[in-house]
């Protein structure tokens, strides 16, 4: 039965249900319970923002607090995946990939190919991303395109509670390494989520709104902003089709291309920096494979090519919003 829960609760529920179903699933990360070795109570935090709260007591011995030592514990999750477990490791903020990226892109991502198809690495790395918390340059980036670039990794960017639960369960059951991106602003977003276990397959985009005038492809938190923009544009007589790829690797190219074949106009909305981004990747895809259908130049609505700033004034300017999307869609729609 579906009821309204938050994105954060949906993630917690997916972990809880999969840990109950499969004893090989373990959870590890910095303060994932919280309080290990300290004089007070255990499960003091349940992760820095409380996403894994409660799992420690429900699943004794299977929620491991780690030292602040990302190379060691992300690598350990990968090694454990090679030896029969299905670890879900938390890289607290994706910005911290800089201190452990080797274990992800040179080790986990390569094992299957490099070892001639004889290795499986069923590890999930959950990580927070995105601006909006005034957390500044080292705690606010959207780095999914860096992982998407690496063959061997799967990259998941859920935009709502329903997808978060279904995609996380799919991630845990997948036999390839999966990087699961959680937008920290979306943690409080509520949505209908079934209580029962279900999966959302990788590489299947969601069409969240149908329209004939302009295709908007948006990722993560930007999906909601695109919906807000589309609602306003509807009043002006511009009908947008909104596509949420849900996973950037694999990418559902077909759904994007089919939509552009219909509308002939595309706006890509990506909270990340613009160069070598999902925005430029999707724009490039459409230019290569649906060039004949295009009636207007493709617009990209992204953060500018600067690090995320701290000041609220600057951060609000940095992140794409519904107004920017509306302007871009209008330009594309009016192009003749």
């Amino acid at each position, binding site marked *: 039965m579906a009821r309204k829960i938050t994105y954060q609760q949906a993630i917690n529920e997916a972990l809880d249900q999969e840990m109950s179903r499969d004893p090989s699933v373990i959870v590890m990360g910095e303060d994932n319970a919280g309080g290990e070795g300290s004089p007070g109570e255990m499960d003091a935090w349940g992760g820095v923002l409380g996403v894994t709260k409660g799992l420690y007591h429900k699943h004794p011995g299977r929620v491991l607090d780690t030292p602040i030592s990302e190379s*060691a514990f992300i690598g350990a999750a990968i090694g454990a995946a*090679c030896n029969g477990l299905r670890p879900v490791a938390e890289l607290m903020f994706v910005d911290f990939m800089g201190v452990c990226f080797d274990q992800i892109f040179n080790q986990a991502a390569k094992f299957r190919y490099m070892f001639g198809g004889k290795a499986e690495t069923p590890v999930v790395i959950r990580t927070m991303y995105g601006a909006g918390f005034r957390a500044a340059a080292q705690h606010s980036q959207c780095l999914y395109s860096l992982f998407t670039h690496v063959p061997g990794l799967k990259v998941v960017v859920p935009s709502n509670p329903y997808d978060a639960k279904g995609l996380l369960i799919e991630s845990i059951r997948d036999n390839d390494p999966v990087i699961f991106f959680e937008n920290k602003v979306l943690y409080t977003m509520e949505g209908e989520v079934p209580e029962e276990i279900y999966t959302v397959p990788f590489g299947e985009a969601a069409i969240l709104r149908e329209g004939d005038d302009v295709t908007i492809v948006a990722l993560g938190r930007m999906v909601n902003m695109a919906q807000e923009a589309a609602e306003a544009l509807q009043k002006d007589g511009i009908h947008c089709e909104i596509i949420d790829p849900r996973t950037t690797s694999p990418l559902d190219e077909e759904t994007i291309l089919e939509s552009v074949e219909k509308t002939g106009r595309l706006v890509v909305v990506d909270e990340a920096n613009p160069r070598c981004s999902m925005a430029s990747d999707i724009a490039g895809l459409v230019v290569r494979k649906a060039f004949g259908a295009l009636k207007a130049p493709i617009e990209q609505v992204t953060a500018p090519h600067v690090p995320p700033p701290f000041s609220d004034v600057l951060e609000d300017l940095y992140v794409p919003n519904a107004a920017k999307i509306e302007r871009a869609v209008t330009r594309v729609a009016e192009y003749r």
Partner: protein
Amino acid sequence: MNTELNRESLLKAYRMMRTIREFEERVHTDFATGEIPGFVHLYAGEEASATGVCMHLSGNDYIASTHRGHGHCIAKGVDPAGMMAEIWGKETGTCKGKGGSMHIADLSKGMLGANGIVGGGGPLICGTALAAKLRGDKTVGVCFFGDGASNQGTILEAMNLATVWNLPAIFVAENNGYAETTSPNYSVACENIADRAAAFGMPGVIVDGFDFFAVYEAAGEAVKRAREGGGPTLIEVKVSRYYGHFEGDQQKYRAEGEVQKLRNEKDCLMQFRRHVTADGDISAAELDAIDAEVLAMIDDSVVRAKADPKPGPEELLTDVYVSY
């Protein structure tokens, strides 16, 4: 000296070391002809280390290796013929010709891979050891790494985590005196790599890596401790390599006559032979017979590797994901 090794085990250890030596000498020779592609790092000279450690391991135990990984692979039971084909880039190779010398792995043998990244194996072996500990299956994980890797954060982080989680892990620092060209006298801030063990709350021991029995004994204690839940150990194996960092290295950073002196005075096979034949239980003729068998086996593996086909073009696009 160790007395627990029976005759059968001694012959097995000798065969393992001889196989590694013969394999590496043959790759060295063949590489010089220009027929072997890529980067190759040879383990000749260090055979007692891999053998002394892996003689304590079963197929369910894991090891993580280094770019200089052929010896570890052979000692862990990876098929030398498959390895040779892999090094020649053939479809019959251990990894279907997709890995090469630096990435030979066989998880069915508990061999988690040679590794092109210096220090890459430390965190991984913490993971296999964690899985073993959570299952309570009494298996262990061994991370082989070099003096160069001893300065990598991954190794230091892994040793810390191994103690924090009391993992059945053994860290084997093969100090062969050169990180590429750079001596640990320069690059390692303390006198011995093993000295760092104290900082991570684990026992640290130093052994002569030319002496199989010394390695075997130290590794035996460490593996026993790990299997019994006593946590990790750092073993520093002081050894040397007979060839360059990679094949083609002119080795101008080494002292004149250094390798020849080691071959003449310290060689692990020479010492082993002298030791086991001294009491007359094993004859030189028996060891000679093993030498001949190993030589024939390596010859055969090269003949087959040369004749085997390269991977078909369709192999380029497979083994990336579950789906393709």
